[in-house]
């Protein structure tokens, strides 16, 4: 069985493509690829492909945060990305991915939400991040978070008409100020396979994994969000090891992102 | 490495999932238990049974999973040209093929409902259960027959031994006081027919509710005596009545 073969390989300290257990596949980041979006980014992590788009609009603030802008993160798994993806409303995996990325962006306070306030209690900027998975070859969360943050870092405000209090959609790329992004959160997912911890699995490795834990870190290296997924378990030691890996590899990923 | 074997709970103790019942390799894991790191643990909420070195935990709730050889009571729920589908009060349906139900030769194209029809209640034996839980039944057993009239009761399948009692003592007791014919299926379905089916039903429910408490036979006897004012049924229903 495929799973047994994978487990034996990992137990012997090797990976299918020869990488180290704590090594990412080649990563490419491109930003500004969708001009109709206020911000966008495309991430290739091995063969996984994720695109994130940032759209801004003006809305009423939420009642309990009248001075802050709104943030929404949504995720879609496009059916051509994998035979496992079905058309229809987001699956629980897609919902989870969006919420885990949201956690990193929100808990790191990477957007200064108060700077998105136009008129307190009346009008604020709403930031919508949509993450589309276009090709699934494992480790989508890390790629999705990179895409979301890269898109945020290069996003610009669209034209805003103070008289009509509406966004001017003139079919031209947004050319306003950059968004008030003050941190660059990064998510590293640590996977447990055959009792060992590794990062950035490709599809086959991911299918044999027992469990995963995603940990988000801020620019200063502090942890700000975590999510465990999958059927297996982690011991306290494994979780602490994972935290260390998340910080170390998080710094590597962050170095690839556009600067603040 | 010689680990001393020890038993940590007594017979009939109530245990919960994860409770350690015994240590060491001397004790063997029976149904309802599993072994982990040299410890024998319970998988279910139930009562411990010890039979020499075999440790079992009898679950106090749960569904019936068919086993070959079980005598069960089922209801015909569907049929094709050559087999019936039987509802066993289980997550698994079972198939009864004509060849296992009708001793004579059956013409191709016969409407087999002439033998057993939808809704018929039968006492039938489990012939085989495949690894993926495809269940085959057979009427090729001296106890197998259609059960006419009467009514059906259900209990948790694991409590069937309590309804039957040691060497049938409990079921004989109920028959004596209610005058009913009683057939018990391993799947927890019980058929009663006779002058006091209602009392039989209430007795079975009592057993279901109190199976975990010691002294059940005494309590059931007391209950039956009270209900019949000390008079066992004057007439016992016979087979064929």
């Amino acid at each position, binding site marked *: 069985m495929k799973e047994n073969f994978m487990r034996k390989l990992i137990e012997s300290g090797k990976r299918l493509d020869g990488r180290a257990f704590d090594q990412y596949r080649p990563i490419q980041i491109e930003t500004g690829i969708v001009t109709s979006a206020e911000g966008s980014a495309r991430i290739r992590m091995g063969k996984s492909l994720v695109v994130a788009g940032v759209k801004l609009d003006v809305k009423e603030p939420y009642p309990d945060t009248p001075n802050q802008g709104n943030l929404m993160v949504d995720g879609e798994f496009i059916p051509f990305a994998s035979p496992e993806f079905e058309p229809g409303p987001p699956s629980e995996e897609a919902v989870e991915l969006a919420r885990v990325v949201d956690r990193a962006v929100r808990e790191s306070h990477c957007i200064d939400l108060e700077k998105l306030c136009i008129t307190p209690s009346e009008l604020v900027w709403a930031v919508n991040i949509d993450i589309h998975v276009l090709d699934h070859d494992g480790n989508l969360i890390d790629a999705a978070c990179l895409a979301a943050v890269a898109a945020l870092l290069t996003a610009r405000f669209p034209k805003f008409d103070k008289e009509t209090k509406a966004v001017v959609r003139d079919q031209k790329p947004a050319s306003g100020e950059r968004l008030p992004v003050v941190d660059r959160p990064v998510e590293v997912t640590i996977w447990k396979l055959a009792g060992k911890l590794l990062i950035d699995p490709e599809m086959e490795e991911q299918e044999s994994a027992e469990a995963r834990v995603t940990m988000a870190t801020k620019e200063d290296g502090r942890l700000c969000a975590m999510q465990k997924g999958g059927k*297996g378990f982690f011991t306290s030691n494994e979780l602490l090891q994972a*935290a260390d890996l998340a910080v170390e590899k998080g710094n590597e990923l962050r170095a690839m992102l556009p600067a603040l | 490495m010689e680990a001393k074997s020890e038993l940590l709970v007594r017979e009939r103790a109530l*245990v919960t999932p994860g409770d350690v019942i015994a240590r060491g390799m001397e004790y063997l894991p029976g149904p309802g238990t599993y072994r982990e790191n040299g410890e024998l643990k319970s998988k279910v*909420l139930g009562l411990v049974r010890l039979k020499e070195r075999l440790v079992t935990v009898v679950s106090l*709730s749960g569904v019936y999973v068919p086993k070959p050889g079980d005598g069960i009571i089922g209801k015909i729920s569907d049929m094709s040209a050559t087999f019936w589908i039987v509802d066993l009060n289980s997550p698994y349906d079972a198939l009864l093929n004509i060849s296992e139900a009708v001793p004579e030769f059956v013409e191709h194209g016969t409407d087999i409902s002439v033998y057993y029809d939808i809704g018929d209640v039968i006492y039938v034996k489990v012939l085989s259960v495949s690894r993926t839980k495809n269940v085959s039944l057979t009427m090729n057993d001296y106890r197998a027959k259609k059960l006419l009239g009467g009514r059906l009761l259900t209990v948790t399948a694991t409590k069937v031994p309590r309804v039957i009692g040691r060497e049938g003592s409990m079921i004989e007791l109920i028959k004596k006081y209610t005058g009913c014919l009683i057939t018990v299926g391993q799947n927890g379905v019980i058929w009663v027919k006779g002058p006091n089916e209602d009392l039989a039903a209430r007795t079975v429910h009592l057993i279901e509710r109190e199976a975990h408490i010691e002294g059940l036979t005494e309590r059931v006897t007391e209950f039956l005596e009270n209900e019949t004012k000390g008079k066992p049924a004057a007439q016992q229903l016979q087979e064929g009545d």
Partner: protein
Amino acid sequence: MGGSKVGAPEHLIIKGKRLDGRTPGDFRPITTDVGVLSHAKGSAVFRFGNTWAMAGVMGPHEMHPKGLQDPANATLRTRYFMAPFSTWERSRPGMSRRSTEISKVIKEAMQQVLFLEEYPKTAIDLYMEILQADASTRIAAINAASMAMADAGIPMRDLISAVSVGRADGVLILDVAGLEDNFGDVDMAVATVADKDQFVLLQVDGIITRKEFETLLGMARKGIAEVYRKQKEALIRRYPGATMEAVQ
């Protein structure tokens, strides 16, 4: 930066005591009950103070559509659902993305302990209903779910036990309640297999140092030991009159 929300209290910890009078390491009153529903094969209630969760297990039963049956295992389906009246502001009925995510992480936690291979091709349906929400709802839900599974006779390696831990006003706390959830800095949901060092559910919101993370894991395990004990007691109480003494 983050900005403060409307209604934030000035302090969450005053002279070492929390707003409801608890010390940082105290639980709210815990209530448990098993076997509360008549149709569900197994059922249970778990409360932390005002947070009230009820779980019901239906099955194992035949699974439809047949094409989705797993020939080797039972399929566990879970649904965590909040009643619209469970919160002060009526929440919209129906599944939200949040409840979808919570259903998923609870399912994954339960899959670690259930012997699903004993009921191939069937479905086991776990429904968790939050009747009243005062933070730590997924924790109460999974604690109830565990007991409900045992009540249903589904074979399990052990129970799943959960607690929430967090930080408010810089103080690490156990069993996060209402205001602490809304206005505290860190909220961490944790579940383990019994009281063992096997974490099957972990969600953290908020900025923590590695040291705090380590301390919180330890606090969680300590709290879980107590929850586990209460769950076991509740299961035993389900069958009054049963004998439990160990052999001497």
